[in-house]
């Protein structure tokens, strides 16, 4: 077992030495960044490292969780770009079809993913953020000559890199009856279909990682529905459970690797003998190690089939808070110089552009279930503290 892992590590390390992009941080436009992502994904697919979590006989598939861990450790170690553009397609879309899709859907969509088609997620809405069941985008089933379609109208937001996506995983409301979750249906939307408009969101650090999707009477064939009508909520759980802890492990390791950037900043500011800074740096370095150990332990629990509800929330919360602390110390050390605007690096959370890193770190305390939602999960579902009553009444509306 260990020797298999060692062999994989050796082989991958050698491959990365020759193939890992070195100059990816130089991308100065979104399009350059996207082109670099596509190229890197294609090379990983060809070499058999892009989809280790897919089953055989997909090329490079059928890897154990322990092997997947080795792959992400080595990608982090080589400081190769993270696979951001293909993340939703290889994880979210794949898991959705693997668990809830039909054989026809797998045959139709999965080969395209390997060929570089990219996907985005259409779950959140302006009125449905943490409260995803509040989704209002409506899908109405209508008869057409070539077969029934859903006519979909609504708006999605916080969709990562939707401006580059070929397809969207979409949650829409098909009914207002019963529980809010029971009225949701899961669809695949072609982003080139008439009626789809994408508008990138300008973020505070200058990136456009997220986008809004406006959906105006878009027709989606019933064959592109995943699961039964009204079962969308359950299908979405399969989508969201697909990351399996590897992402946070990879990010934690990358943050540890990027401590050297903070050390450089401290030396550059001439503060390597400033006791307060040295202490805070030592505390941060220890905390980052602790987060890495936590992510390792979580993956180990998954490998042992011992995961408990709330475990994933603790890892995400711990990572997100630590990432903020990392960027915060960078901002502090960089002083006034750090307040002078510098061009951002795309796809790097620990770039050493401290203001950009600091603002970027909010993506992890808000997206994918905010810190507050994670705390609720930990308190209620892990520690058994009772939920608040569901219904409340505005004081003014009382007679």
């Amino acid at each position, binding site marked *: 077992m260990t020797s298999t892992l060692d062999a994989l590590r050796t082989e991958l390390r050698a491959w990365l030495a020759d193939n890992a992009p070195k100059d990816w941080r130089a991308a100065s436009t979104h399009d350059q960044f996207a082109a670099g992502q596509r190229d890197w994904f294609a090379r990983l697919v060809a070499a058999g490292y892009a989809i280790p979590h897919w089953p055989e006989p997909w090329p490079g598939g059928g890897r154990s969780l322990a092997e997947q861990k080795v792959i992400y450790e080595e990608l982090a170690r080589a400081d190769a770009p993270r696979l951001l553009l293909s993340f939703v397609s290889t994880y979210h879309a794949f898991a959705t079809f693997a668990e809830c899709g039909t054989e026809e859907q797998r045959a139709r969509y999965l080969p395209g993913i390997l060929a570089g088609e990219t996907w985005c997620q259409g779950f959140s809405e302006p009125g449905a953020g943490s409260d995803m069941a509040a989704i209002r985008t409506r899908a109405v089933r209508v008869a057409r000559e070539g077969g029934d379609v859903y006519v979909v109208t609504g708006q999605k937001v916080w969709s990562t890199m939707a401006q580059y996506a070929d397809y969207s995983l979409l949650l829409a409301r098909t009914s207002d009856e019963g529980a809010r979750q029971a009225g949701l249906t899961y669809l695949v939307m072609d982003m080139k279909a008439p009626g789809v408009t994408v508008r990138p969101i300008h973020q505070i650090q200058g990136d456009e990682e997220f986008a809004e999707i406006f959906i105006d009477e878009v027709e989606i064939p019933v064959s592109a529905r995943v699961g039964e009508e009204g079962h969308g909520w359950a299908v979405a759980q399969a989508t969201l459970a697909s990351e399996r802890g590897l992402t946070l492990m990879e990010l934690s390791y990358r943050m540890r690797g990027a*401590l050297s950037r903070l*050390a450089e900043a*401290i*030396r550059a500011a001439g503060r*390597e003998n400033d*006791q307060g*800074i*040295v*202490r*805070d*740096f*030592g*505390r941060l*370095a*220890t*905390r980052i*190690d*602790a*987060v890495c*150990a*936590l992510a*390792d*332990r979580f993956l180990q629990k998954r490998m042992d089939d011992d995961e408990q509800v709330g475990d994933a929330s*603790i890892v995400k*919360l*711990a990572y997100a*808070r630590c990432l903020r602390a990392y960027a915060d110390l960078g901002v502090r050390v960089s002083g006034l110089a750090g307040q002078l605007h510098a061009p951002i690096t795309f796809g790097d959370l620990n770039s050493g552009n401290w203001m950009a890193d600091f603002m970027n770190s909010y993506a992890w305390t808000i997206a994918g279930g905010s810190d*507050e939602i*994670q*705390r*609720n999960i*930990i*308190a*209620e579902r*892990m*520690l*058994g*503290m*009772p*939920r*608040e009553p569901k219904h409340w009444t505005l004081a003014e509306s009382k007679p």
Partner: protein
Amino acid sequence: MTVTCEELRDSAQKVFPDWEAARDPAHSWQTISELGWFMLGVPEDQGGLGAGRGELAVIFAECGRVLLPGAVIAQFLGVEALAGAQDFAGRESLLEAAMAGELITTSLEHAGSDAALRCVPDADRARHVLVRQAGEIALVALDGAEISQTPTWDLSRRLFDVTLAADARRTILASGDAAEELGARLDGLLSLALAGDALGGGQALLTMTIDYLKDRRQFERPLAMFQALKHRVANLKAALVTAESLYYGRAGASTDAVALGAMKAHACTAFRQIAEDAVQLHGGVGLTAEYPVHLFLKRALLDAALGGDADYWEEQAGRQALAPA
């Protein structure tokens, strides 16, 4: 080694279900001696059980969970020193007696502090004290020594100042390079023991606090229903689990004194946060001597101060991480 971490944990929880069960120092000491805890870390060819630091880590956390009284940590250091010492006449019988529970005490201050013997637990009932001084580690008889108890806020430990008799019998355990090597091992073990104590205490206190919040009702609902309190508890849980991961991760893998010291600082900070919040979350009863919250708070703050505090270790860790590779 045939005992697993789970078995150690189970047996500890069976004999000490909670802090009240461990409250009597003499009885607790006898119990853990009979369980063979002091033999755990000693190699099998020296009559021990040959357990690694990973197993010891479990035991230290169990000690903290029940606020185990007495000189347990000092005894582990004494046994480690005897097992790692150069050979001398009588070493075998001393080690055997120590493994069976005959107390060897030692200072729980960080060795770098100074040469005075302070913070020596239960010196009044020990025959020997382990002393570290200028390139030498020695076992010194306490006959004729001047010992005086220094009352502490923490009621679960009794600490003493010790002034050795001028003609006290000294046995050198290690000197020169060997003393340095053994000293680093003892530093690491002290950090590990205090970190484990903190995490076990933190875990017990957090559980107790959550139970209290579920039980206590105000405004016609349990306090545990208020989100402001849930979020504080969730933060404490995350801090605890993160610190535990570092603890069990480094316990068996790291021998670097600074890495273990920084880990100790991280663990003690987590316990401290839990203890400080636990008093607040218990409200008025958290201020009463009747409730056990204060016992944990005081132990948390003593753990944080012993064996080098967070300011010291964080600075060391920072210097190490900043040093050019």
